[in-house]
């Protein structure tokens, strides 16, 4: 497979499972991690479900994903206590990504995963002292077994869909966050995922439990070097937002253009709770991502903001769902998509309002900006409303950059690329302004780079 050899610490060497998906492989992963019996059983059950479920019957072509030709587990690097201890190549990558700097300046905690395992994690002492748990899933499974078991794959069970089942069988890495009652984590926690090695799949599991009245902002970013071979990323995020708590989950996805990014993300929000999703999708070959919130308690709220920039050869199949199960719940799903070259962008906005969700309010708004004649877009709203005491609305627009706008900006001295870039930035600004400043800057830079690349 032409693996790159990385200098390793700890003397144990690189640990990689055989290629392919079998019960023996699952047992090997579980044994390697020293997991409790219930988790192994969960994995094996999920594998059975995976085998029974069909591939998704909608969206992009996934025929290139070959489940028999993926390394499901790869420990590239031993966990370390400081950046300096990481192998040179990995350390340099993280430095270029600005992670150590962000950790010093703007974060309450940071976790970094390479391939299948978390290799670095830190948490501010004052945050730890508040009782906040921020640990790699494997550690949390050992340190807080009951807490993990109570919630693990309860928001998204393996039966939900084929990739949820796959994830349940082979998950590795990811983060467990638990915020005690009434605790507000003032600055964000961040996780960074890196797929470093060719042929490896990444299946990190993120579980966040916010106890009543607490609040936390969690940010995840990701990247990978570009390989020619298709790679699979299938992470899962489960969030439990208890009464009156507030969780904000921000993702900035910049996978290289050989990655199939097929994720499951879902939150359940109880009475008076607020769940906010902010998703920026720039990379990957194919993405399927539909962050959902189940509004399970009276007065629960969700905001789901998505922006994407699809370029040549990409199919970004995005969406957002709000499931209103309780009275006076509200949701706002907003999307801004930019499509350049021969690429496709889809937005599936789904609102379900149950008969008992009287007084629910829901709003879906998606706008697309097409930059080329071959660019394709589709907006698929589904409003399933089962009672009459609701306010729901949907709006969708598709536009192109108008010649008049372009000429106007150019008549002030901006060249064409600057003018287009300004128009695009302006178009996505309703979402960008929701992203913390440090990340918005990085994101703008990424957008500008992507854009410069797109117009050649």
């Amino acid at each position, binding site marked *: 497979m032409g693996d790159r050899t990385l200098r390793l610490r700890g003397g144990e060497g690189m640990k990689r499972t055989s290629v392919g998906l079998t019960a023996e492989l699952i047992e090997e992963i579980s044994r390697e991690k020293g997991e409790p019996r219930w988790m192994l059983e969960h994995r094996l059950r999920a594998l059975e479900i995976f085998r029974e479920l069909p591939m998704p019957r909608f969206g992009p072509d996934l025929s290139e994903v070959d489940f028999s030709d993926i390394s499901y587990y790869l420990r590239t690097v031993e966990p370390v206590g400081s950046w300096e201890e990481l192998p040179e190549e990995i350390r340099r990558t993280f430095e270029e990504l600005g992670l150590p700097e962000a950790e010093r300046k703007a974060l309450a905690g940071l976790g970094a995963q390479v391939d299948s395992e978390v290799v670095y994690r830190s948490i501010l002492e004052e945050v730890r002292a508040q009782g906040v748990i921020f640990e790699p899933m494997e550690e949390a499974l050992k340190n807080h077994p009951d807490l993990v078991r109570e919630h693990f794959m309860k928001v998204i069970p393996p039966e939900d869909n084929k990739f949820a089942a796959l994830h349940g069988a082979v998950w590795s890495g990811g983060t467990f966050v638990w915020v005690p009652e009434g605790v507000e984590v003032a600055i964000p926690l961040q996780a960074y995922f890196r797929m470093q090695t060719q042929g490896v799949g990444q299946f990190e599991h993120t579980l966040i439990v916010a106890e009543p009245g607490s609040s936390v902002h969690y940010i995840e970013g990701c990247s990978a070097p570009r390989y020619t071979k298709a790679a699979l990323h299938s992470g899962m995020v489960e969030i439990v937002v208890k009464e009156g708590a507030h969780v904000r989950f921000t993702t900035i996805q910049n996978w290289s253009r050989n990655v199939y990014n097929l994720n499951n993300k879902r939150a359940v929000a109880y009475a008076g709770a607020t769940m906010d999703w902010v998703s920026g999708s720039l990379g990957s070959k194919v993405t399927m991502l539909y962050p959902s919130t189940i509004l399970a308690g009276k007065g629960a709220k969700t905001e789901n903001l998505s922006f994407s920039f699809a370029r040549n050869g990409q199919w970004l199949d995005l969406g957002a769902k709000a499931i209103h199960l309780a009275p006076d719940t509200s949701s706002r799903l907003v999307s801004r998509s930019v499509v350049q070259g021969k690429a496709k962008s889809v937005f599936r906005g789904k609102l379900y309002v149950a008969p008992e969700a009287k007084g629910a309010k829901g709003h879906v708004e998606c706008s697309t900006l097409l930059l080329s004649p071959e660019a394709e877009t589709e907006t698929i709203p589904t409003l399933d409303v089962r009672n009459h005491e609701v306010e729901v609305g949907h709006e969708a627009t598709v536009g192109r950059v*108008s*010649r*008049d*706008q372009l*000429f*106007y*900006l*150019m*008549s*002030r*001295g*901006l*060249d*064409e690329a*600057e*003018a287009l870039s*300004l*128009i695009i*930035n*302006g*178009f*996505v*600004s*309703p979402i960008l302004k929701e992203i913390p400043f440090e990340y918005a800057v990085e994101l703008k830079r990424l957008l500008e780079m992507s854009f410069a690349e797109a117009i050649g």
Partner: protein
Amino acid sequence: MVVTVEGKKILKGISLSLEKGKIHALMGPNGSGKSTLAFALAGHPDYLIEEGRIFLNSEDITKLPPHERARRGLFLGFQYPPEVEGVRLREFLRLAAANCHEPFCEFQKLYLESLAYFRMDELGERELNVGFSGGEKKRSELLQMRVLRPKVALLDEPDSGVDVDGLRLIAAGIEEAARLGTAVLLITHYPRILEHLPISKVFVLDDGHIVREGGPELAWEIERSGYEAVRG
């Protein structure tokens, strides 16, 4: 100059020159080609110059793209400035000023001062032209001119849709620009704004030709007798 738009000849052979620090009025009935002249001079790609050339300070700019003309000091104040969602006026103008070689600190000072000058303080952080009233759009165009300090300003109906107070501000802005050395071509239907300004020359455009040229008295003649009467 001969200009066609979508294959239709709009300007049929006109010639004019503008003098530094002077205000020139371009008048004419609807559809006479006034806006076409402004767009063609500024380099709009839909306005094709079939014959003739444009010189800015003896440099031939006929073939330059719009942003290169702007960087050399040409400014077009739009009759209908488009809205640009999500782009703040300040942010946009800072970028424009940087391209026109205005250093940042200078920009900041000039920008704030110009906001106050045109009584636009509340618009400074708003999105470019989004939800601006007609009058606000016109003041915003003048503000941009004031910050960019062009050598030549083509102002396409800066007075239409503007109330009396707004008109005074706009006239003051134009006069100031001329005083600072800008050659102004003021395109207007109505002589009203000309009452507030020292006009050095009036051109009357009709059906793609300049049919009359004269001093400010020509504007009063139009005011009294209409375009029919002055049409050569």
